[in-house]
């Protein structure tokens, strides 16, 4: 800079940049470009993640179903105990009526691979609900199997040579016949939400995981919300400044940064091993999650309490309220929006937490939703983990769909938190 100033020759306009200034400005532009590149990279990764998950999830939006006319012969099912019938056999017979030419055991096996194992249960439930169907012919709608489903959705490329695809030429032919006869439909896949887990992708759903996550979050909320507020109120409003309260503060700050898997180890050693609580149960999961959420809620509550101006407290104490009354009647209600916002964000984090739940066994394979919070169950993220680990191709799209469901819940919770912050936040000035 000083060089340019002293040179000051008349040949150049005073603002004309020399080589050095050009270099300096180029460095400036480079830094700006690095910044833009960094942001573009981060956002591109975010977009890639969302888009790939959404694309993989797309096939799971619908479930390919087949409609069959089934005849339940009089003697095959006992009307007084319709649960006990051999429905698979009945179903096999009605399949055989559509494909009379299939007779070798190998072909029959391949034919049956096209239909879901859940067909017999769909049929059973229908007969149990209405035993007068026995002896009549009626229509049953049930899922195609994983390979049938993928054939319909084009996941399996039928133009590939036989040894490179998972279905035989006969299976493709049978499937085409079913399509010609108008038996194939692809309605929205409500089973993904309302079925419990299953070994078969076409039958597997999230209901058990949703119920388990709900119970765990309920416990987490019931424990961490009151305890968190109480601890924060004590530290912010009552605690004298001494070494003991310092210790508590340092503790809370450190707990907030302890890796989640360590909380899982704590849950395993203390809740399961020492107290003998049931393995895989949402109550244990909820307790572990509440210990993790507690620091978040305490920190948020303290921030909200700090934001309430001292004049409110002084006014309450001035008219004769006790300190507990001041806090209970005035400070806490004013801080409540901030506290609730922090709580919802904490619960959203708890909902997505996986590692501690794995350690206390919430990744068990359970084919029914839990009746209570003491029954073994999975949770939404652990269910995703189980499905992601399953080798069947159909689970890939279901895993992505489950992730979309999980992200949907998280978006909703965070949206509520943001709305509450905007709507109820008070500016004291």
């Amino acid at each position, binding site marked *: 800079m000083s060089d340019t100033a002293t040179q000051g020759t008349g040949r150049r306009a005073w603002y004309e940049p020399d080589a050095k200034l050009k270099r300096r*400005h180029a*460095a*400036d532009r*480079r*830094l*700006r470009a*690095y*910044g*833009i*590149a*960094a*942001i573009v*990279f*981060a*956002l591109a*990764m*975010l977009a*890639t*993640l969302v888009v790939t*998950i959404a694309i993989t999830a797309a096939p799971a939006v619908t479930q390919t179903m087949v409609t069959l006319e089934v005849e339940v012969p009089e003697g095959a099912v006992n009307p007084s105990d319709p649960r006990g019938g051999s429905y698979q056999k009945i179903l096999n017979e009605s399949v055989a009526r559509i494909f009379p030419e299939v007779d070798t055991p190998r072909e029959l096996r391949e034919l049956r691979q096209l239909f879901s194992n859940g067909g017999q249960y769909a049929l059973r439930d229908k007969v149990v609900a209405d035993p007068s169907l026995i002896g009549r012919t009626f229509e049953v709608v049930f899922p195609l199997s994983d390979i049938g489903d993928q054939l319909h959705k084009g996941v399996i490329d039928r133009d590939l040579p036989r040894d490179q695809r998972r279905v035989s030429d006969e299976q493709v032919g049978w499937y085409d016949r079913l399509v010609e006869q108008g038996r194939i439909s692809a309605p929205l896949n409500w089973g993904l939400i309302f079925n419990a887990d299953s070994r078969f992708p076409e039958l597997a759903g999230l209901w058990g995981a949703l119920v388990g996550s709900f119970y765990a979050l309920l416990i987490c909320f019931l424990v961490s919300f009151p*305890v968190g507020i*109480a*601890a924060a109120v*004590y530290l912010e409003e009552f605690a004298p400044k001494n070494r003991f309260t310092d*210790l*508590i503060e340092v*503790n809370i*700050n*450190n707990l907030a*940064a*302890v*890796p*989640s*898997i*360590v*909380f*899982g*180890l*704590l849950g*395993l*050693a*203390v809740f399961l091993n020492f107290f003998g609580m049931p393995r895989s149960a949402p109550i244990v999961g909820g307790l572990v999650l509440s210990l993790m959420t*507690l620091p978040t809620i305490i920190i948020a509550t303290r921030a909200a309490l700090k934001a309430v101006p001292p004049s409110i407290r002084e006014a309450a104490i001035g008219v004769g309220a*006790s300190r507990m*009354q001041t806090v209970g009647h005035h400070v806490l209600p004013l801080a409540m929006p901030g506290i609730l916002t922090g709580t919802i964000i904490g619960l959203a984090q708890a909902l*997505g*937490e*996986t*590692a501690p739940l*794995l350690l206390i066994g919430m*990744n068990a394979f359970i084919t029914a939703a839990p009746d209570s919070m003491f029954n073994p169950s999975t949770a939404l*993220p652990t269910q*995703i*983990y189980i499905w*992601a680990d399953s080798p069947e191709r159909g689970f*890939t799209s279901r*895993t*992505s769909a489950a*992730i979309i469901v999980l992200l949907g819940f*998280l978006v909703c919770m965070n949206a509520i938190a943001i709305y509450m912050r905007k709507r109820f936040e008070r500016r004291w000035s």
Partner: protein
Amino acid sequence: MSVTLLFAIVLALAFVGYLLGRANASGLKAAGNSLHSIPPYHGYFVALWCGLPAFLLVFIWQAAQSTVVDQLLLASLPAHLTEGATPARISLLLGEIKNVAAGRIFGTPEQVTIDAAARYQSLQNTASLAMVVCTLAAAIAGIAFARSRLSPEFRARNRVDGILRWLLIICSILAILTTLGIILSLVIESLAFFSRVPVTEFLFGMEWSPQMAIRSDQIAATGAFGAVPVFWGTIFISAIAMFVALPVGLFSAIYLVEYADKRVRSVVKPLLEILAGIPTIVYGFFAVLTVAPFIREFGMSLGLDVASNSALAAGGVMGIMIIPFISSFSDDAITAVPQSMRDGAYALGATKAETIRQVLLPAALPGIVGGVLLAVSRAIGETMIVVMAAGLTATLTANPLEGVTTVTVQIVTLLIGDTEFDSPKTLSAFGLGLVLFISTLALNVLALQVVKRYRERYE
């Protein structure tokens, strides 16, 4: 009767106590006395005395019941079954009895077991009944005692405030109890582990293969517990993550604070923070589904041999997860530098880039370093991404295209499924957990120290 119902009844009793106490006080007031506290506080006092002891009793009872019942049951078993039996044998026996009692019968149990199951059932029933009776008695006794204290001069408000304050203190002590619980459980299990495997072998051994024979008579590997390859894998993957996250996070923070206009900033900053809100299991699946195959194919096309669970995939995705940590910490630190310092630099003719490099970054360094340390601690403790995308076998390699394993991966694989607490395999997970806890704690404390010590220089 279920515990939930019992809780509801105690709550109802507490409400009745509140009404009684308030009515008492109102009566005293109507009789012309001047009360120290308003009637509702008399009510709160009675309700607290009704509810608190009863709830405490239920908790203690619930915690102790199973142990006590087990002991009674064991004492009642024929001597030949329990004498000299190992703890494992006894817990197996108890499990069998409980299964039979719950109706989950496999095969034909012995008569002894069936008898014991019946006894177990009756013990359980007695214990539950006794709990209900004792709890209700405690609740009612609490009401009676508290009511006997009420009088016009009674300082109900002060008493209630005092009780509430103790409740608040207990709640805040819970944080300490959690830490204590973590430390105790990790240390106790680790000590059990180190009594079988020497600490030095664990910390400095070069071979890690913790798979043990399932039965003691099986001939198989006895397991090697040298954790250095595991530590190396953790450090390696975290380093890759920081290699991705540090430049991206820092440059985006610089751009957002110093270059971007307000509108861009208000859009991009929340978008970046979304990255921090995505659950780690989603990143893990993303790594397996997209990033790992991409890296593999890209490497193949260059003729490189890439493992399907390469450290690069796990570390790279972890780096993406950590970007928002670095960027928001750096953002805060740069924003906190006083405007006067920028103005001073501009007044001397510095360009923006020069101001940033020579004035803002040095001034913001403590905050940035603190954020980076916290991010490293986060990377070390991160579990799901590496569980899904990193390898299981511990290899000492500096090749990011090979698979390495991490501390968290080993903890999860060692403890997943049914676990027994007396094999070194299970216990080694707690040893790893202790190392993980200590190292993340040290990083956090260090980060706070750095921020604290250098923060106030410009204020």
